[in-house]
């Protein structure tokens, strides 16, 4: 088992003919992901690399190929519309990689998704991977190894850091999910924790958070009373100055809320092992995992 994606996932790529879209679609295909369709308006009936049919709209692509997940590489000004189009077509899992979508656009998307059956991951995220089965996103596939640790994070390279530490020490991952660095996003830390809680293959969890918002605290509160699996957390941004946006649109300490100290406190209060530095994330998990 794993969560959300596996070898039965039939992936569609919105923006497949763009530079990043094409590059990463190929990366996913090389990894073994079943990419069944691409969407670029105006390029319908063409083919991507002679292997993947391109459609003008998501609904046509879905009808023709039965795709059940999409990866979005549409530029920021048009990405919110791309998410809405995928939801309208009934795509079950929408993974939006695009960075820089206006918050006001995401607010409307979020409102529409409340009554939709589609699940959104991202935006501004590295994607999701179930090692050996399905990679949807921009993460380097080879650093992963199949196993029992579920990984949830907001960012890209910091997640690779943690995953690589695990893999080097012989600990594989069930699924790794990047929820994204934007203030308004689809799947939250808590949503992901709940899915991992029910996944039999996942025996332990790594939760990587950063300053801003309260997604990590919400997850911690739920973990305290509901989760029996060992959890290790790392929170980035203890040295970030307040009021400044640290790269990610969502990584900002506003007034006294969203500080690293408050998040670490919440994690510890929930009995979660907190790694003191990003270099010791895997070690910290392995310690609690073994006990």
């Amino acid at each position, binding site marked *: 088992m794993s969560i959300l994606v596996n070898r039965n996932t039939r992936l569609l790529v919105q923006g497949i003919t763009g530079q990043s879209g094409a590059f990463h679609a190929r990366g996913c295909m090389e990894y073994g992901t079943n990419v069944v369709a691409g969407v670029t308006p105006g390029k319908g009936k063409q083919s991507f690399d002679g292997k993947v049919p391109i459609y003008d709209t998501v609904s046509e692509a879905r009808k023709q190929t039965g795709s059940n997940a999409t990866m979005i590489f549409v530029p920021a000004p048009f990405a919110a519309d791309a998410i809405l189009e995928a939801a309208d077509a009934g795509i079950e899992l929408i993974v939006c990689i695009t960075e820089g979508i206006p918050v*006001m656009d995401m607010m409307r998307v979020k409102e529409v998704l409340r009554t939709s059956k589609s699940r959104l991951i991202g935006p501004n995220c590295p994607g999701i991977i179930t090692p050996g089965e399905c990679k949807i996103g*921009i993460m380097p596939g080879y650093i992963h190894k199949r196993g029992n640790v579920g990984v949830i994070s907001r960012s890209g*390279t910091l*997640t690779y850091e943690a995953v690589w530490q695990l893999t080097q020490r012989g600990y594989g991952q069930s699924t790794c999910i990047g929820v994204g660095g934007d203030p308004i996003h689809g799947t939250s830390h808590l949503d992901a924790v709940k899915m991992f809680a029910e996944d039999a293959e996942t025996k332990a969890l790594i939760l990587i958070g950063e300053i801003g918002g309260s997604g990590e605290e919400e997850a911690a509160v739920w973990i305290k009373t509901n989760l029996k699996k060992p959890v290790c957390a790392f929170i980035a941004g203890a040295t970030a100055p307040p009021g400044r946006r*640290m790269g990610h649109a969502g990584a900002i300490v506003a007034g006294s809320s969203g500080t690293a100290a408050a998040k670490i406190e919440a994690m510890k209060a929930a009995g979660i092992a907190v790694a*003191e530095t990003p270099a010791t994330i895997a070690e910290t998990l392995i310690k609690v995992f073994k006990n």
Partner: protein
Amino acid sequence: MNIHEYQAKELFQRFGVASPKGLPADTPEEAEKVATDLKTSHLVVKAQIHAGGRGKGVFKNGLKGGVRLCSSPAEARELAQNMLGHFLVTNQTGPDGRLVRKVMVAESVEIQREVYFAILMDRETGVPVVVVSTEGGVDIETVAEKSPDKIYREKVPPLLGMQPYMALKLARQLEFSGDQLKAAAKLIQNVYKLFSTLDCSLVEINPLVVTKSGEVLALDAKFEFDDNALYRHPEIVAMRDENEEDPREVEASKFSLNYIGLDGDIACLVNGAGLAMATMDIIKYAGGRPANFLDVGGGASEEQVTEAFKILISDKNVKAILVNIFGGIMRCDVIAQGIINAVRAVTLPVPLVVRLEGTNVDQGKKLLTESKLPIRAAADLAEAAKLVVAAARGA
């Protein structure tokens, strides 16, 4: 992005949000003319800098207060003379203060009542939330602490926006009645229109005042704009004042580098925002102080890496540099070549520690070794932090 008070006033005018009359001035003569045109003996001259605490600030030339009342155009001119071209020190500027390049001359109003009104994008619920309080003119966090029952919050349905009845309800919550109720409700609707049209993440009016003559006016305002949406608001981008920003950050933004200046002495260059923050944290953990946040992104070019190095070494406080790259899609050999070219292009005045991991890491390390440049290689993140802290201490 921040804007000046006079620019906020321009936006209020555009959206029909009532606020006291006033205009900016670059010279004492202009200040006098603005004051004359206002046709009132109740005047205020305000230094235009981005930092807060202006009222209680002190100019380096001895003038007390960056916000001063006066009663004639001649006085306004004299105050402007003493503010323009002088440094104002407030509790937010640091000891060097901020050079005042503009003042705003406005009508000063006699206040009968002050309330608090704000609209912000609430990330937990993903909808705009209006926050109002009858306790205006003081810091809202203080009110939240001392009398939380005096703060009222209301969500705005994102697809509907602020409806007239909601604005009325909020105005009643602020204890407005009669003609003032209608004026306040109209102001609230117009502020919401401004908030949503201009992609704000915060509009805070503190205080919103009732004057002795019964007018409802936005007296002071704070705006925050969503950087992601600036592409569709060129008029807001035009309000950017680079003089108010850290020159290192202005330079970095020209090359699309995500840079934030700090006051430590260990510079860092990292790919990815999360890892960049974590790198700052581990420097501190190892006993050092980070000089900056710098995310070169997932697809940095050689030119960007070179420019990034130039910005890092232009900071005279910097005693050592740490490059921390986790090559995913970005290959380590490409990064290594970028570093080598950058180091050759700029003479490196301080020790450089490099930690590479990920795709093609062996080729990357080989390139660095063969370059014969004085680069200290670290095997992992923990070692990198230790090495760079030691290097900054001259070890």
